[in-house]
């Protein structure tokens, strides 16, 4: 270590004997170790964040393809191809509807509304499809994409709740909690969050859920949080956060 000797760091006018005395404390500080970080877990979480941010505004497809590797590129293009085909079908259907012989010309406002509905359903379909993929990164992308949906259907909320309860990947479950925040006014979402905080095995997810319950001021979660605080088998950090949550919820 560069600063093993304290005297070099003290003002020039400090008494020599005093400096030596303090140096003993300084040297002793060198004996205090810290636990090592869980680098792998931290890196995995960071990669998930980078991936989500990176693909929120995707670069040119060619660059993306080569950076992600062939297998992931194929999956990406399969989803894109599927989306493009669906858009083509929707376009043809809308065109036929507009051009159908003998029918009165459709009113343009309703036509635009119909197209918007088609687009919304398409985006939803892509999000839901991504959430069913085998790769955690794709599922994470699917969860993130639901945030861009204007008026998601109940099916999206159900898929998010299902991911929260059953997805094997911690990062996906964490992203799901963020995605569910916009549906916090729904009774089923709040009930699922309370149920999940009890069932989750990951302390990270449990802590995120407690924060969610506090943020949404879900007072009905108090008995569950109290149970967590009192359960000695529960992770210390979770118990401490649950205690804090109870305090916040009054």
């Amino acid at each position, binding site marked *: 270590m*560069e600063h093993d000797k304290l005297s070099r760091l003290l003002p020039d006018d400090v008494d020599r004997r005093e400096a030596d005395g*303090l140096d003993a404390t300084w040297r002793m500080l060198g*004996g205090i170790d*810290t636990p090592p970080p869980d680098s792998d877990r931290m*890196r995995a979480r960071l990669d998930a964040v980078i991936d989500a941010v990176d693909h929120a505004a995707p670069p040119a497809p060619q660059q993306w393809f080569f950076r992600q590797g062939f297998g992931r590129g194929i999956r990406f293009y399969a989803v894109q191809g599927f989306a493009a085909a669906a858009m083509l079908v929707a376009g043809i259907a809308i065109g036929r509807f507009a051009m159908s012989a003998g029918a009165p010309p459709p009113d343009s406002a309703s036509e635009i509304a119909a197209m918007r509905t088609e687009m919304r359903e398409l985006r939803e379909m892509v999000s839901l499809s991504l959430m069913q993929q085998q790769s955690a990164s794709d599922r994470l992308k699917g969860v993130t994409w639901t945030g861009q949906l204007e008026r998601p259907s109940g099916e999206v909320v159900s898929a998010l709740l299902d991911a929260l309860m059953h997805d094997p990947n911690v990062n996906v479950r964490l992203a799901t909690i963020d995605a569910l925040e916009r549906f916090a006014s729904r009774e089923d979402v709040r009930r699922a969050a309370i149920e999940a905080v009890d069932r989750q095995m990951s302390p990270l997810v449990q802590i995120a859920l407690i924060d969610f319950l506090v943020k949404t001021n879900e007072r009905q979660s108090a008995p569950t949080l109290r149970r967590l605080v009192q359960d000695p088998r529960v992770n210390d950090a979770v118990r401490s956060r649950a205690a804090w949550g109870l305090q916040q919820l009054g």
Partner: protein
Amino acid sequence: MEAVRAGDLPKLGILFERHHRALFDFLVRMTGNASAAEDLVQDVFVRVLKYRATWRGEGRFETWLFRIARNARADYFRTRPPDAPIDEAAEHPSGAPLPGDLLARSRDLARLQQALLLLREDKRELIVLARYRGMKLEAIADLLGIEVGAVKVRIHRAVKELRDIFQRLDESPSWNTTNSVGSCPTT
């Protein structure tokens, strides 16, 4: 960092590998809690990602990173309750008895660690940066926005106060229970 700023976000992984241990060490010594420190390291890199456009390439990257870490820590404890401190048993996970000298040394170290956590945050931070991170006086001055001379004076005061708390804990082990971090006596 230049590449990350230019949009090559996966390069952040390289910066993470290079700096996360130092950041974790700083934050775990500051918070006394490993899981809070891990969360904070994560937060620091998310902030790097978020504010990448503000990196000007002037000064040292490490100083910029630690500035972000200091802000992240302050924000973290503004919204969350302090967690449990590091378990002393983590120093000796086996729990096996130690020989006399080692046992005494181990007790002294535990007491010193306790004293460090009782030290006021700004003073603890100076000791952690200088002693454990080996940061140069100029870098600390830059990070804290003060003169090098002021850094020296503050380090002097901080170590004196640490030694005093350490001695008080020896004389009266229950001293810490009646004295909060913010109310440590100054010398």
